[in-house]
């Protein structure tokens, strides 16, 4: 299972890639593999302001529909519309297929998240 260096991770298997004050968010390789073939994704609206821990998207596979939780508070500034027509991109390239980008409200929230190493250890125990 691939875990990419330089990203932040959550226990719910989301990743965060930070560029300045902008954070891209997606689901990890483990998450896409556990879900199986993804067939549908529900995206939030640009402009939505959400708290860390809020469910911002629903990813549906042939097995289950799962909420995706926002790792850090922020305002949605971009959504990856390509996923609406091709949700399978998440299966093919989970770290390349960001779901949304947010404008961070509180960068200190990133300190609460795991780095690649910590996530790897978490995965080996939990998953």
């Amino acid at each position, binding site marked *: 299972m691939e875990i990419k260096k330089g990203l932040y991770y959550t226990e719910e298997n989301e990743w965060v890639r930070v560029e300045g004050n902008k954070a891209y968010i997606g689901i990890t390789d483990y998450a896409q593999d556990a879900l199986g*073939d993804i*067939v*549908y994704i529900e995206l939030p609206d640009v402009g939505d302001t959400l708290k860390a821990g809020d469910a911002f998207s629903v990813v*549906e596979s*042939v*097995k*289950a529909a799962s909420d995706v939780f926002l790792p850090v508070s922020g305002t949605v500034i971009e959504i990856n519309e390509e996923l609406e027509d091709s*949700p399978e991109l998440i299966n093919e390239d989970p770290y390349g297929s960001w779901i949304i980008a947010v404008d961070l409200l509180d960068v200190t929230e990133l300190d609460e998240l795991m780095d690649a190493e910590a996530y790897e250890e978490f995965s080996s125990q939990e998953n």
Partner: protein
Amino acid sequence: MRDYNKLIFEISREGRKAYSLPKCDVDTLPVDELIPEKYLSSTPTNMPEVSEVDIVRHYTNLSSKNYGVDTGFYPLGSCTMKYNPKINEVVASYDGFRNIHPLQPEETVQGALEVMYELQKALGEITGMSEVSLQPAAGAHGELTGLMIMKAYHRERGEDTKRTKIIVPDSAHGTNPASASVLGYEVVEIESDKNGDVNVEKLKEAMGDDIAGMMLTNPSTLGLFEPNVNEICDIVHAAGGLMYYDGANANAILGVTRPGDMGFDIIHLNLHKTFSTPHGGGGPGSGPVGVSEELAKFLPTPTVEKHGDVYTLNYSKPSSIGKVKGFYGHFGVCVRAYAYILSMGAEGLENVSANAVINANYLMQALKGTYKLPIDRLCKHEFVLGGIENDNGITTLDIAKRLIDYGYYPPTVYFPLTIHEAMMIEPTETESVETLDAFISAMLKIAEEAESTPELLKEAPHNTPVRRVDEVSAARNPIIKYT
């Protein structure tokens, strides 16, 4: 005709018909003189044209492909697909039940009202609740009704705008969060601990004066009886919340314990699960709601009451949440459930649960070792496997598909979400040891096949007219119309 798999459109031949009408004996007019042009469709209707024998064979062959509890073992976890005794159908077809009208005067349907009244009482006795409404159409409707009662309770106390959250454990029955959301509640999920129980410490942390209540399924979807249920009820009550009992798994506790005694304030039952009424194929279901004495005034109207020897429908309950269903709920289903309760009796119902639990544990012990058992402890009416121990790339989906070849309805798969490769098995009480042993043999054989001939499983089912369905393409590019 075992492999018959045609659509009725495919056997259609132009001009063929299954009727013979007499010549029209009134004047006819062209349709465009009768209906304005803008309402006329020019698209051909494409209706199938078949002869009588074609249509009879078509539907008879399709009907023979049905699989139900009357055909074979149906261990669909979480759903309690128990056998429905035929006496239920005999009783429900009595003239006085079948040929009455919901608008008949009460004095002409006293027998029907008596059945409803006695069923309300029996369900109240079984669950330890003060009063019961038979109106909700099925389980999720019962949840909605129960939560409306919860909201009405908080509203009366002036707290409904403050109490905006409902606690739901992650091992809850799947509809709970949906029902809470429909009523505008925010769902707070509580993780299970390593044993699959509600994490009491996390529950304490989540409590506050913004909590309206908690929905709990006990035994849980993992088939486990919640050992801390009394403490959980105390914690929620102390914070001013109410406890809601989802009766999805009530088949495990009949005559043994009661939600009312555990501390619950509101419950629903699924007559189509626990009380042997038709399930699946549209049922219809029935999800009676029971409440504590304090909440009885909020129940939907009408309730059936008994005054002396006379049964009446009471519509005048000022605090009632109102009507939740046309007329009185699914009356015919209620008759079947009442017939079941009477034919079982108190001792019989206790045996139902005892046998449901014994059957589940028997299967669990026989499959453990060959199959992963993520939570290994005494189960109630169902248990959850996590795939084959030496899986060799074989997933739970492959196992489920292969079970079809062996003539079984596959168990629930990939639910609950808390277990990887979940397969939830619920045999119910009505299955004999021979049936259980045959199912065990099939499951063990499948595990052997996973080792020796995995491709056999990957390509299963083999013995069905339609083979493995491409679920991914079907979901991504659905074709929902025959052209």
